[in-house]
């Protein structure tokens, strides 16, 4: 394994990538997005388009800027340059159509709020300042909790549940928003197999309803099972396209460089042949 590959400066490989200018009517279209926390870009001039009604993965090594990309697309952190379109509209106008599930949220778990309260936060924007949380809103939140299998835990204080369950609560909160585009940051990190199955089940149901899902994902072994499209990033966009044609050993090598163990690569290569 050549240790000298520096994925950060590998440019587009010129194959299996999407069009240079993503179509404006994609669920989420990103043009030339650059974000940096200091003098070094965390994300540099990334183009990407996530089509409506598909489940897409964002894949890259640790520190590749995946979370940064999502947060900048959501306007949580400012972008240095670039444009973001959501369903062909500006972020500001389409805000209500986006749901976000943060990476194992770093919140205060002793906060005075119950599981159901947290899910209801997804309804706050629609309620406005003066709106009352009707029985209907409560029922809606409970139904979202039920979809992730946590209806029994509605009245627990938010810290009184396990790690995988917390992740599902945040998914339920995004579901309550009834968003058309769902952005999830490593929804499967640190959760058990049952939770992973529950979450992917919910995501596939969303796809059936025509919703769009974009998830940062780290487990290369499940990419083919879970996702339709993939965006490989490492500060810059390495490749983007349908999983079948884009999830190749070559692209992975370019994305992960020396950081991906040879054995891991050959395993995936075998999977390549198998498909």
């Amino acid at each position, binding site marked *: 394994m050549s240790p000298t590959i520096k994925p950060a400066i590998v440019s587009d490989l010129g194959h299996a990538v999407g069009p240079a200018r993503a179509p404006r009517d994609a669920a989420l279209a990103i043009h030339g997005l650059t974000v940096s926390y200091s003098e070094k870009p965390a994300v540099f001039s990334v183009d990407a388009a996530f089509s409506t009604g598909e489940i897409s993965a964002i894949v890259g090594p640790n520190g590749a800027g995946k979370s940064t990309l999502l*947060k900048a697309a*959501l*306007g*949580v952190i400012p972008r240095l340059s670039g444009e973001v379109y959501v369903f062909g509209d500006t972020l*500001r106008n389409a*805000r*209500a159509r*986006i749901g*976000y599930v*943060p990476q194992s*949220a770093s*919140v*205060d778990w002793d*906060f*005075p*709020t*119950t599981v159901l*309260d*947290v899910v209801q*936060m997804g309804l*706050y*924007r629609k*309620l406005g*300042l*003066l709106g009352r949380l009707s029985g209907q809103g409560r029922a809606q939140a409970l139904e979202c909790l039920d979809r992730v*299998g*946590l*209806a*029994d*835990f509605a009245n627990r*204080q938010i810290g009184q549940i*396990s*790690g*995988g*369950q917390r992740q599902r609560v945040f998914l339920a*909160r995004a579901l309550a*928003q009834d968003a058309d585009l769902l952005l999830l940051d490593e929804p499967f990190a*640190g*959760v*058990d*197999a*049952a*939770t992973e199955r529950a979450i992917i089940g919910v995501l596939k149901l969303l796809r059936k309803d025509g919703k769009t899902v974009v998830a940062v994902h780290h487990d290369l072994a499940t990419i083919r099972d879970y996702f339709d499209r993939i965006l490989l990033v490492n500060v810059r966009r390495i490749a983007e396209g349908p999983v079948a044609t884009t999830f190749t050993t070559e692209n992975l090598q370019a994305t992960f460089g020396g950081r991906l163990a040879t054995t891991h690569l050959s395993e995936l290569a075998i999977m390549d042949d198998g498909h």
Partner: protein
Amino acid sequence: MSLFVEAFFLQAGYNATLVAIGAGVLGFAAGASGTFPFLRKRALISDAVAHATLPGIGLAFILMVTFGGDGRSLLGLIAGSALTAWTGLLLIEWISRRTRLTEDAAIGAILGTFFGAGIVFLTVIQGMSAGRQAGLEGFLLGSTAGMLFQDALLIAVGGSLAVLVTWLMRRPMTIVAFDSDYAMTLGYDVRRIDLLMMGLVLSVTVIGLKLVGLILIVAMLIIPAVAARFWTDRSTKMIWIAGCIGGASGYLGAVLSASAPAMPTGPIIVLVAAGIFVFSLLFAPDRGVLVTLFRHRGFQARVHRRQGLLALAAHHPIREAYTLRLLTREGLVRPDGVPTDAGRAQAAKIARDERRWDVAREIYQDTGLTGRYDGLTPIEDVFTADEIAELDHQLGPPVTARTE
């Protein structure tokens, strides 16, 4: 004592009545408005904001006297104090956002600088001919001597507004305090909501300046919220509980200080609030220290009971006398250690749960879960009914109790 009763029923004279009502309303407003700054972990900034009112008081006085007015005009002093407090707040925010300094360093620097400047102004004013009777030192720790009807009115109007705004903004403030990134994705302007929280702190501070003083006002904002946290797991309920704790402290504190000569009102109010906090700490259900203690005793009993039943399930003798006593008292074993029918049934259920756990630990290799396989936590508390059904499915039909 009779003085206390008189004061409590507002029979101790006009001034004492004004002070008691004013302190009660101020306490309620402070407790309610302090809830979200506390939950957002902004207690220290609140303290800095309060201290940053002092130079404004001094400057406003000097300006008003220079232009030939009465330096003690309450509106002028309030405007001045609000102005420098707001400046201090923006400076702290700017320093921690734009420089490499951390927020606590910024807080320390601004609090010290502004308070120091304020003391310098007060000293200058002492030397002015108009300044000798100004009584501005009263703003440091508060005083009740010169309480006027208009002061009480200011507290009533300003306090009600602060509570109203807190109530209206409870949802945005809850989201921002709990998960500010998520709030941003919903389109909330987090910076503005943070400024609003501090605006509430600032309003309560300036209306409470005269009665409680700027040094202790932060205690009235934060202590009721800290105490209220012991009584509820809902942030909206906390607003009202903190308000009531603050209101009771204000009223009781004012009454107490009126019933003994030369007792400082502000500090007494804070001590009453601290008393309520200690009471909550000790006696609150669920989170209180005593309940925790009893719970520990109960927990110990549960451990012994469970170990006893596990021993029965495994057909082992029960060795510890305490365990045997517990199980005998429940009618699960006879005094000689032989299990009754009820005991055998319980032991069978426990044995099944143990096997469920074995399966669960195999399929959920989750760090959050392994910690919960503690021998005691009922499996129904950890898994949903569906999940348990899944476990049973993997486990196969219940094995009939082993017979000898």
